[in-house]
């Protein structure tokens, strides 16, 4: 009965590889997000997406790309992985876009690039 789920939970990979993290929400929400959590626990937004608009944080390298096959899914593709990409990535969703809409977070995916 998980609201927002992510797979895999852990991902260990070599530098230079291409990988994907999947996110699914069963809440019927319109907007989904990807965050990167840094070592200081700060959550940095990477993308927000609904069926009308993709908003990209300009600081995100173009090696990162979101792919949404349907409203319930927003997958994160990462090309040419670098050591600095190692972090925990969180997916979230909200009913509507907007700063004060409650966001429901997934359990996170811990990515380790060797």
């Amino acid at each position: 009965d998980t609201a927002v789920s992510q797979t895999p939970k852990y991902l260990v990979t070599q530098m230079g590889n291409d990988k994907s993290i999947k996110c699914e929400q069963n809440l019927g929400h319109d907007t989904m997000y990807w965050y990167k959590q840094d070592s200081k626990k700060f959550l940095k937004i990477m993308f927000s997406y609904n069926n009308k608009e993709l908003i990209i944080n300009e600081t995100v390298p173009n090696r990162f790309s979101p792919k949404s096959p349907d409203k319930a899914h927003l997958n994160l593709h990462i090309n040419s992985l670098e050591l600095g990409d190692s972090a925990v990535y969180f997916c979230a969703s909200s009913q509507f876009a907007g700063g004060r809409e409650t966001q429901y977070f997934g359990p996170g995916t811990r990515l380790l690039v060797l």
Partner: protein
Amino acid sequence: EDKVVQSPLSLVVHEGDTVTLNCSYEVTNFRSLLWYKQEKKAPTFLFMLTSSGIEKKSGRLSSILDKKELFSILNITATQTGDSAVYLCAVEDYSGAGSYQLTFGKGTKLSVIP
């Protein structure tokens, strides 16, 4: 069953009031508890608590953790309209294999009216 429960889910107060937000949790290998303020884009990190009874303070905000009773409170004194936001509690627990996971509560939506 939710591992992190926040209460109340929403709260409306007048400017100048003091509010207390609650977060209770149930995890096996507790590592830390985090508070975030979400008002615009990404949640803003407020506090990280690891030890019981030690109050963390930042301006009008303060927070304390009780690891025996498994809860934390976030206090905001002399509230201002700029405090209106969703406040998220998240708990970090050790999930084995040298890693940890972060579980978010559903948030408390605070509205401060002039």
